[in-house]
């Protein structure tokens, strides 16, 4: 699991669907959630929460230009690559955090990823969960 800590800056709601903006060191992330029967007391503007997303939900891009629908974009430096036969794990530094992306080894090759490369890690808003700060 990748975890980042941030402060909820805005909650937009339509019916049971919530779009929550979270400020992580001045970078705004978005999480799309379905509301529970009762709103959890920690899910409020101004509260510090943990953003959680799975390694397999992190896409990587190099020299990305043009428009893209993915809301969560992190400029990262590649720190480590563990190559598997089909699936590789790429460790990335984003600000003070280390996040991991699990992508196909084919993609590692087609992006010609190597250590110290500058890449963008991308996560769709509906793949981000929020957790009460531990």
């Amino acid at each position, binding site marked *: *699991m990748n975890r980042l800590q941030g402060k909820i800056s805005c909650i937009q709601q339509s019916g049971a669907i919530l779009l929550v903006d979270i400020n992580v060191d001045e970078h705004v992330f978005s*999480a*799309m*959630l*379905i509301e*529970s029967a009762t709103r*959890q007391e*920690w*899910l409020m503007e101004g509260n510090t929460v943990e953003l*959680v997303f*799975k*390694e*397999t939900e992190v896409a990587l891009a190099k020299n990305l230009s043009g428009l893209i629908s993915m809301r969560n974009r992190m400029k990262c430096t590649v720190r480590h690559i*563990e*190559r*598997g*036969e*089909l*699936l*590789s*794990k790429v460790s990335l530094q984003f600000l003070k955090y280390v996040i*991991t992306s*699990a992508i196909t080894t084919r993609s590692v090759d087609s992006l010609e990823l190597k250590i110290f490369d500058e890449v963008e890690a991308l996560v769709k808003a*509906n*793949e981000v*969960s*929020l*957790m*009460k700060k531990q």
Partner: protein
Amino acid sequence: MENGLIFIDIEKQMLTANGPMKLVVQTTIQLGELVAVFGESGVGKTTLLRILAGLSAPDKGMVSFGNTVWFDSEKQINIAPQQRNISFMFQDFAIFPNMTVEQNIQFAQPEKNHSFVAELLEVFGLTEFRKYRPNGLSGGQKQRVALARALARKPKLLLLDEPLSALDSEMRNALQNEIAKANQRLGLTTIIVSHDLNEVFRLASVVICIENGLVTRSGKPEDVFSDNSISGKVQITGQIARIQKQDTVYVVTVISGNNQIIKVIAFENDLENLGVGDRVMVFSKAFNPILSRLR
């Protein structure tokens, strides 16, 4: 006015396989509920049941059923089991081999009540077997006889200590339904000790979780076992059956409460404090699962 609660506030020093442990329980149970006492073995579940039955006395505290005090260490009250109007059934129950099914059930009645015996035979699907002796019955049927017998004296409180753990899952499901039916139909309060999550979810309206002699959580099973501290809407509880490293990731096999096999991809940091046998919550966002009609 009759108060509709079982009130429990007790302490008892126990000697377990892992050394001495203190059982401390403070809780109330609404009369008419079907309550599960959930936890690992050796945490004090059976001791709590024995205290309620009057088979074991707490070191101190109080137990009352409605307005009747069953135990009070200060006032030195300890009502005998036979005066508590309870029935209990343990895992290693015994039924009389020389009596028929019907006679086994009748035997438990202080005053004969044939119509009630007939009702019990019907609730437990034993009517056509009423003249059989136990050695002509299957394991599940014997269990039904034991349950019917436990109810024959019309107890106010039924205490069940893992009564179904020796049965296969199909038989267990059938008997769980019958226990729920009996609880409702006879207006009982039932307390069942279980370490089977599936059983807790199927049967109990309230669950009391005991760990190391202490009540850690209690409430509706869906509230107690769902994790409110995470936004994921798909939450399945289960037990880790296997962890296999495959390629650069781990494939974790989890057996869910209703015996579904779930496979989850995990990474080292997910597994730091987890191992085979641990109970886990598998959660996913409401956005990911796909529905498909069952054929």
